[in-house]
């Protein structure tokens, strides 16, 4: 299958990228380093380690999605490997989907590795793992799928630098979307308020995927909520990939 062929190669290529290993090393350092912060808050160290390790998985996953993702299509055009690919009897959306799926598979592996390191570390420190921890990892990955779709879209239409800036801003703002709705009263009825509200509806609300605090404190999260977050992410991702395919459809390469 054509999508799989493209995905497989994307995965193979990304696995060879040195940036990946540098980021994984930093992630490991952050996970192990979290213990240091645990010491400061006596008796709370397991909680802190869980919280910070999950944060590390999320942040480094996003960095990999940004570094690899915003380059994906751009690099194929830049290095002209795309010529011999798009001249085949394949749809351009199949290429986009294949690039996306390859990176999504890589991120699944990377997230699993980082989460496993964090999980083992928690157990070694004498902590207990409950289902919420794994739900948190799942939602972190689901957020990465969304972020990756945005990165792939941007890699099809703009340069990696601009793409990276936009994706990173979206990640930061997406975790703080409440600032748009909790504006001070002097904004009422102003044009800026309407613009900010529009941004609020466009930018994905990434805090939907954030159940780190619950995982750290061992508070159960309803499966219904997890399912809802997954559906939310899937819809967003599908829309982004559709836009990417449409934007790429008639592009001169």
């Amino acid at each position: 299958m054509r999508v799989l062929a493209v995905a497989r190669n994307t995965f193979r290529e990304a696995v060879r990228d040195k940036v990946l290993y540098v980021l994984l090393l930093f992630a490991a350092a952050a996970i192990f380093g979290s213990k240091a912060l645990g010491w400061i808050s006596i008796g709370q160290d397991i909680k802190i380690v869980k919280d910070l390790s999950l944060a590390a998985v999320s942040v480094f996953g996003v960095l990999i999605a940004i570094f690899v993702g915003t380059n994906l299509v751009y690099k194929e055009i830049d290095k002209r490997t795309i010529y011999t690919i798009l001249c085949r009897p394949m749809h351009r959306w199949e290429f986009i989907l294949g690039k996306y799926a390859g990176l999504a598979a890589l991120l699944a592996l990377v997230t699993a590795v980082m989460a496993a390191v964090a999980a083992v570390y928690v157990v070694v420190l004498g902590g207990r793992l409950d289902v919420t921890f794994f739900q948190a990892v799942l939602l972190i990955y689901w957020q990465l799928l969304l972020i990756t779709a945005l990165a792939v879209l941007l890699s099809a239409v703009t340069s990696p630098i601009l793409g990276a800036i936009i994706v990173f801003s979206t990640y930061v703002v997406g975790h703080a979307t409440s600032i748009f709705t909790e504006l001070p009263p002097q904004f009422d009825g102003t044009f800026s308020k309407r613009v900010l509200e529009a941004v609020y509806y466009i930018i994905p609300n990434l805090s939907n995927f954030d159940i780190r605090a619950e995982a750290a404190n061992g508070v159960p999260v309803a499966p219904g909520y997890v399912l809802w977050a997954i559906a939310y992410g899937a819809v967003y991702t599908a829309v982004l990939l559709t836009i990417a395919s449409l934007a790429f459809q008639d592009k001169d390469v």
Partner: protein
Amino acid sequence: MDAIATRNLTKVYRGHIGRGAVRSLDSLTLTIAPNEVFGFLGRNGAGKTTTIKILCSLLRATTGEAFVMGQDTRRRDTRKHIGYLPENPYFYEYLNPRETLDFYGELHGLTRAERAAEWDRLADLLDLRDIAGQRVRGFSKGMRQRLGFAVALVGNPHVLILDEPMSGLDPLGRRLIRELILLLHGQGKTIFFSSHVLGDVEQICSRVGILVKGKLTTQGRLDELLNRRVNRVEIIAAGLSEPAAAAVAARSDGVRESEQGRHFFVNDLDAANAVAADILQSGGTLVEFTPIRESLEEYFMREQETVS
């Protein structure tokens, strides 16, 4: 049905800041019959690659349309019929030729068994077996071109579109490509290739088109385009006595001397034959008898001048 046809194909690249739009291709109308070897000629920047990229649907034409095997090139299934070799082909550096062909076979929709058969066929045809396991990263230009050719042939398409297939190759490599093109021609394929190496074109093309600044100035059969009449004959003779030489010179249109002997130029084939007979009769030896025809290169130069 034409193997390739374009109608008023025009491409205007959108201008960048401080630079206007560029009309790189202007109303190109071309037809290429099945099984033709068509040479697409033009200087750097004439629009050859632009045309080829439109045929392979990598670029959208600004106006006009293009057909391959009777189907619009914008349709996906049209591309089944096209084998494309880009100018300096690039492949994934970390794959070896075998993996590369497998990948393209998959994109072409071939099954695993078909891909294995394609590998056997193309590895033999392009002599890829000895480099089957090497990464493309370390490949020389000649190896890349061979692999590029193999990739273009994956799926056995009817129409081969080759963008400067011989550029950057040594004489041996060029000959290999020429022979390959003739072999494919023998198998009934249609071959469209761009070039500015006129000698190569002259040797293998049945028809050519000449593109000057985005406009097609000529298309036609090579033997019809070139004035195939002999318009000059050069005769070199030795061992002539002075008076005999003077007599022959009087009947020629030009004379020159070199260590090979005397060169006589005659502007007509029959007259030249008579002159040669005279030389032999006066006891001289014929060293050379060379009819001079217009070459594609001379034609090409003339074409460039008429436009500019």
